[in-house]
């Protein structure tokens, strides 16, 4: 396979942080790939460096060694080309802007969108995430789940080919989280965007991902990259099937070996 068939290709990535007391190895020799159009979830306990790995791909952190290729380019090039969308754990909306103005932020900074971009209408993207009619609402008027939807719409503006998501539903209640999981699968299918999704929930990892990358902590290492053998069309009811429970148990067993 040529390298541009991958949305992300990380080879031997190592990241060290130096704090005042000691040096910490956050990621140690991590290699993995996300196929173009794929959906990979990063699963691991806290301290396994999964958020760090996501930030390496987004060019927010420069790795000490190793190579990162994003859509056949360097991470920095991909970022500057607006090939990346990032959704944070906290929706990180600007409180003085309406939902619509928040989604439109990428138009106003960093030189705006490339001329060839897809998804150039903030209004259409709010509709895509199910927020038609809420355009003029301010973040404090929206629920946590709605704020995350706005953040997803903002990340999708310009039609990035890769969406990076850092535990975006971690702070939401379970019912909201389930509904957004279902919708994220739909958005993924509708937009054709590759997704790299960080979570510490086994169920979320298995339900969302076509593949799951299991990481171990201290230092962050790859345990295994598992392909999830579930149909492309997934509904929440799937999670009660014996097959899904089996997959979840398998992932949990892998985590169990690495978590003291």
């Amino acid at each position, binding site marked *: 396979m040529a390298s541009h068939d991958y949305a992300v290709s990380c080879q031997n990535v190592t990241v060290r942080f130096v704090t005042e007391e000691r040096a910490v190895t956050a990621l140690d020799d991590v290699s993995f790939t996300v196929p173009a159009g794929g959906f990979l979830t990063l699963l691991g306990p806290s301290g396994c460096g999964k958020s760090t790995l996501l*930030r390496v791909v*987004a*060019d*927010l952190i420069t790795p000490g060694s190793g190579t990162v290729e994003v859509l056949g380019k360097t991470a920095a090039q991909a*970022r*500057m080309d*607006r090939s*990346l*969308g*990032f959704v*944070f*754990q*906290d929706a*990180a909306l*600007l*409180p*003085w802007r309406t939902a619509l103005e928040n989604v439109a*932020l*990428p138009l*106003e*900074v*960093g*030189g705006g969108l490339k001329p060839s971009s897809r998804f150039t209408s903030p209004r259409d993207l709010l509709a895509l995430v199910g927020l038609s009619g809420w355009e003029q609402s*301010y*973040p*404090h008027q929206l629920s946590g789940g709605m704020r995350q939807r706005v953040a997803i719409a903002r990340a999708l503006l310009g039609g990035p080919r890769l969406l990076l998501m850092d535990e975006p539903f971690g702070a939401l209640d379970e019912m909201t989280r389930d509904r957004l999981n279902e919708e994220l699968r739909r958005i993924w299918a509708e937009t054709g965007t590759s997704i790299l999704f960080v979570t510490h929930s086994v169920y979320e990892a298995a339900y969302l991902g076509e593949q799951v990358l299991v990481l171990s902590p201290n230092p962050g290492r790859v345990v295994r990259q598992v392909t999830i053998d579930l149909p492309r069309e997934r509904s929440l009811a799937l999670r009660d099937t014996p097959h899904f429970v089996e997959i979840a148990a398998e992932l949990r067993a892998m985590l169990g070996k690495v978590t003291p």
Partner: protein
Amino acid sequence: MNHSPAHPSQTDLSSDEVAFAQASQKARLRRRIMPVLGVASVLLLWAALVYWLKVPPFIAPSPQMVAVTLWDKSGLLWTNLVPTMIESVAGFLLGNLAAIVIATVFVHKKTLEEAFFPVVVVINTIPVVAKAPILVLLLGNGMEPKIAIAALICFFPTLVNMVRGLESVNPQAMELMRVLSASKREVFFKLRLPHSLPYLFSALKIAASTAVIGAIVGEWIGSTLGIGALIIQATYAFDSALLYATVIVGSCFSMSFFLLISLIERLALRQTSQQNS
């Protein structure tokens, strides 16, 4: 479901709702009347004490005397208020502008903040009354030293608040700006500056009243015009009625200045007020 509709029309108000509306109107009226009654009773007590204790006018005036003085000497009071107004507003603008600019520089150049923030703290520890003579020597007897004192007194709280406002942005919003390849300028105008506005306004409200104090303290030292100068003159002349009238004029101006800034704040922060309160 038997919950009431969201917008009940006037006609279908139940008697409970009518009673509630009347009670809340009464409460509103009460909130208006009580402070007025409070002020009136203090004035009455003041008048009664001066009358019964036969306090001589060079010690303390009666409220009637102060009212008469406010009327009779309104020309004199106005002539002296104008320079104080100019000095405090000019000092306010100068001090806060300097604070905003320096805060912006500090946020972008950390080394400068590390080097000069302690200097600013030291200057701030010098009391105003001690700074005033130094500035009079430096800047002469005109309006300049008063403006400088008013500016200095505004400067510090605004600088501290503005630095905090510019720096305390959500780290994830900063990462978002980086993912979007935003320039430093865009980060400043789209993220840091709007985020800092509530911090800035709370400092400006403090500055509005302290700027007036600064100008008045400046006028105490070798000045012939201004609210501060008039206070000194009235005191030495044992003209207590004029002294009280001057103080009242000064504090009325200070209060109006504060209210003006509060009004601007309310207009500027309409959307975010709920978020940040």
